[in-house]
């Protein structure tokens, strides 16, 4: 609590520090400015942009002793096969300054029409959805205001553009703790695991009625960057949102609070995308969840907090990123457990319930851009410990080895090989059952083409 207060004071102090000059240009890693503003005096009324990401993935996980498959061995978002092609993202958007003489107002819109977690739920539908629609008002120096639906200020992995991702899949921490799945209105029993025959018949393990949050929220954000001198910028953001991802509702009547602070040294003189950034963030909100296995819709308000800090260094030919994340409440237990339960449906409340569990995660990523070539080598280790201290505590660890071939600045091919180690670490009956499934989680190969315009 004390840390939280200190963080808030620091943020407010930074935002209103009178001695700071508003930064003229956005740094290469300043996602707040890059996504929320347009270049002053040089923006188009309408700039059409977007990208396509098509991939092939093969999961080498094996069935459990009774021939069944759990979601970790299946490819998302469909979760009904171990290998196949996917059109993961088809995003098209427009952004700009509607009346180019007046730089005070910018807008940003984006549609998702691929087959991704943000536009697919248990219904199986994946029509186009609006993932971003925001207006930025640049009237107050040091306090730009962005309203609408957009990426909330938070982890580096979620905030960065998907076209800038160096890997095909997210870390376990980002996938489980940050890429939020929302509880169904009524208790939904566990589903699966399914047998191969059932999967071939089109079984759908996803039992969430809503789509994933996509690191986004609807609300209002105050933000800006300040020039600290010697190429250092200080950025801050404070946001209030519904806490409902890309769905426009606020059914719990509560608002999520987001805070973000970063200090970035612009290394553009050594390369256009170069920079060194230290960042810290926090989000706090509540969620309604029905975790009792009965026919009564008796939802309880649970606290959901996430915090993180990290550093990103990008100075070609090297890249290093580290981020540490903590999570308290609403720990996602997997797509076959829509009521946040991990092992035993008869005991869905209490210690086995992810709705009031804790978790933490971290990752270390390194990249080497092979000089005088278009090739890049990447390696990342990430790990997540979920339900910490509970009798179903589990650890998911993953090495991702990869290479990227940058065809041109807007197009690339990414190939990854994931070495995964999933374990339920507590010595309890719940873990015996869970490990029966988790020990068969295998490695995964993926190759993806990204083309942006």
């Amino acid at each position: 609590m004390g840390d939280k207060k200190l963080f808030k004071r620091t943020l407010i102090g930074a935002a209103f520090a009178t001695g700071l000059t508003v930064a003229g240009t956005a740094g290469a890693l300043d996602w707040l400015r890059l996504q929320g503003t347009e270049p002053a005096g040089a923006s188009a009324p309408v700039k059409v942009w977007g990208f396509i990401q098509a991939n092939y993935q093969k999961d080498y996980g094996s069935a459990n002793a009774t021939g069944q498959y759990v979601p970790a061995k299946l490819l998302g978002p469909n979760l009904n096969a171990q290998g196949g092609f996917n059109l993961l993202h088809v995003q098209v958007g427009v952004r700009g300054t509607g009346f180019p003489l007046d730089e005070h107002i910018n807008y940003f819109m984006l549609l998702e029409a691929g087959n991704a977690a943000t536009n697919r739920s248990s219904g199986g539908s994946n029509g186009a959805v609006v993932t971003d629609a925001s207006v930025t008002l640049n009237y107050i120096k040091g306090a730009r205001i962005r309203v609408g639906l957009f990426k909330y200020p938070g982890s580096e992995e979620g905030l960065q553009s998907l076209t800038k991702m160096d890997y095909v899949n997210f870390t376990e921490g980002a996938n489980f703790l940050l890429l939020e799945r929302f509880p169904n209105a009524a208790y939904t029993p566990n589903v699966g695991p399914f047998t191969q025959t059932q999967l071939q018949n089109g079984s759908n393990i996803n039992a969430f009625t809503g789509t994933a949050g996509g690191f986004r929220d609807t609300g209002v954000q105050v933000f800006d960057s300040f020039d600290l001198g010697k190429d250092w910028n200080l950025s801050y953001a404070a946001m209030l949102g519904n806490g409902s991802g890309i769905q426009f509702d606020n059914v719990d009547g509560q608002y999520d609070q987001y805070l973000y602070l970063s200090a970035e040294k612009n290394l553009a003189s050594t390369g256009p995308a170069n920079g060194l950034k230290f960042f810290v963030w926090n989000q706090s909100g509540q969620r309604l969840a029905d975790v009792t296995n009965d026919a009564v819709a008796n939802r309880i308000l649970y606290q959901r907090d996430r915090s993180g800090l990290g550093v990103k260094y990008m100075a070609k030919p090297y890249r290093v990123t580290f981020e540490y994340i903590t999570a308290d409440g609403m720990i996602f237990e997997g797509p076959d457990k829509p009521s946040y339960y991990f092992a035993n449906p008869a005991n869905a409340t209490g210690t086995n319930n992810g709705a009031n569990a804790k978790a933490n995660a971290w990752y270390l990523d390194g990249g080497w851009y092979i000089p005088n070539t278009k090739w890049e080598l990447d390696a990342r280790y990430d790990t997540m410990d979920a339900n910490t201290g509970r009798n179903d505590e589990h650890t998911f660890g993953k090495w991702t080895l990869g290479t990227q071939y940058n065809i041109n600045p807007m197009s690339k091919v990414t190939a990854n090989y994931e070495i995964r180690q999933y374990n339920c670490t507590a010595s309890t009956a719940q873990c015996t059952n869970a490990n029966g499934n988790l020990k068969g989680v295998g490695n995964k190969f993926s190759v993806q083409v990204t083309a942006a315009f």
Partner: protein
Amino acid sequence: MLTNFRSMFFFIFAFVGMATAAPVVSAAETSLADYQYVLHISDMDPSKQELILNNASNLLDAYPPGAVEIEIVAYGPGLRLMFANNVHAQRIDSLSQSGVKFSACGNTLNAMTKQLGYEPKLNPDAKVVPGGIVRIGELVKQGYIYVKP
């Protein structure tokens, strides 16, 4: 739709720049430079801003110091290049210190002031000339090489 908007925007400011400019016959400007270039920007397209600044930089690099004189003239939507808060302001200042002149069309400025309800603040390195199109004519008459990237 977009094309229409751009065309209308461009037409209004270009027309104002051309039709209402009072021809100003300045005294012959003497120069010891071997080459003189007038670079013209009147486009809405933001990429043209970077292009014209690159042109100026490349010309400076191509000739020995003092051998080339460059003036960038902006009118219509292109005047945004010379707005005080333009993202290229630092680069404009650097080019200005290297001798590149920046001329902002007064007619366009007046028209923009009417639309906005206030006068846009210009880069201090920009000098307001009565009419951008007129200024280009004067420079061409003096022997400047005209370039519109």
